[in-house]
């Protein structure tokens, strides 16, 4: 189809679809007037049952923990997929040639940027740990924490030390982190099957509401997700950046 024909077809079809969507969405309760029995029931039940104060986290890591399990494995599958798609091919050199540290400096990184990154790293790490641990209490949780934690090593990269990044976060370790996180989440659920009656059922003491280790298995799940997400994002980023270096070498 020509570009014009394609756009013409879409013009008709798209306005049709827009009409269908608008007609359908018009049946929704007006914005702000939602009743939501499921949510209300959860709001009422959850603090008493599991001693969690962030209802979203409670849903995420307990009531609907199985969705989160699926979600974690979507992430895992995607990272595995990216590794598969960006793998080094036989005709593109197997062994990276040995080079001095300087060769892997990020060209645009000035000393000031490096210093900034160095200051940033501990901040990011502590924020990440805080988020992961306080998931059941305040906004945040394993996923957000994972991305923040992964940003720490990324800052090292921006600070211009690719090899340093490799030393702080070697590929095998990041890969293992990703796998262990995913595995841990699935395995914690198994605890429910063994010590309680159903998969992903809580089998840990609930603790005091508002305290760090409250919410039963929620903090554990949150940490598992945190590990996986840290690994996943780091792997994806380095996968994309790794190939960069490979191509750069090809140019020379």
């Amino acid at each position, binding site marked *: 189809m020509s570009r014009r024909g394609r756009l013409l077809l879409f013009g008709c079809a798209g306005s049709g679809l827009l009409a269908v969507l608008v007609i359908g969405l018009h049946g929704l309760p007006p914005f702000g007037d939602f009743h939501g029995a499921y949510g209300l029931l959860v709001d009422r039940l959850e603090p008493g049952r599991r001693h969690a104060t962030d209802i979203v986290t409670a849903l995420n890591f307990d009531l609907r923990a199985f969705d989160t399990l699926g979600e974690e494995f979507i992430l895992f599958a995607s990272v595995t997929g990216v590794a598969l798609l960006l793998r080094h091919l036989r005709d593109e050199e197997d062994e990276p040639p040995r080079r001095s540290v300087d060769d892997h400096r990020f060209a645009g990184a000035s000393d000031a940027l490096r210093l900034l990154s160095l200051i940033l790293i501990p901040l990011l790490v502590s924020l990440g740990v805080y988020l992961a641990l306080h998931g059941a209490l305040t906004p945040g949780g394993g996923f957000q924490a994972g*991305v923040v934690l992964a940003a720490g090593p990324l800052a090292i990269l921006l600070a211009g030390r690719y090899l340093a990044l490799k030393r702080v976060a070697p590929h095998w370790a990041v890969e293992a982190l990703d796998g262990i996180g995913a595995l841990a989440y699935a395995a914690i659920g198994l605890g429910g099957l063994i010590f309680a009656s159903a998969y992903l059922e809580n089998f840990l003491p609930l603790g005091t509401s508002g305290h760090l280790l409250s919410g039963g298995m929620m903090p554990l799940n949150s940490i598992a997700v945190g590990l996986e997400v840290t690994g996943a994002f780091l792997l994806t*980023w380095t996968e994309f950046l790794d190939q960069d270096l490979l*191509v750069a070498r*090809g*140019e020379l």
Partner: protein
Amino acid sequence: MTALQAVALLLVVAAGTAIVFISDPLRQTLVLSIFGLTLTLLFFVLQAPDVALSQLVVGSVGMPVIILAALRKIAQHASARERHEEDGE
């Protein structure tokens, strides 16, 4: 709907529409991160702090890094290819 929500919604629509109509991928990436921030703002005023935080870390760190790395790589392939062709002549 409060005024803040209306503003946030408008910003989201404007940024989202802008992404589609910009043709330069680099500028598009920039607008995409702005889009991510407007979404974060909207989620925040819709009383969804967990989601806002998630969107913030993904939209302003996670995705832009991947997109920029991908764009850089595409640019490098392109320049490598050009050089290759010049050498060939």
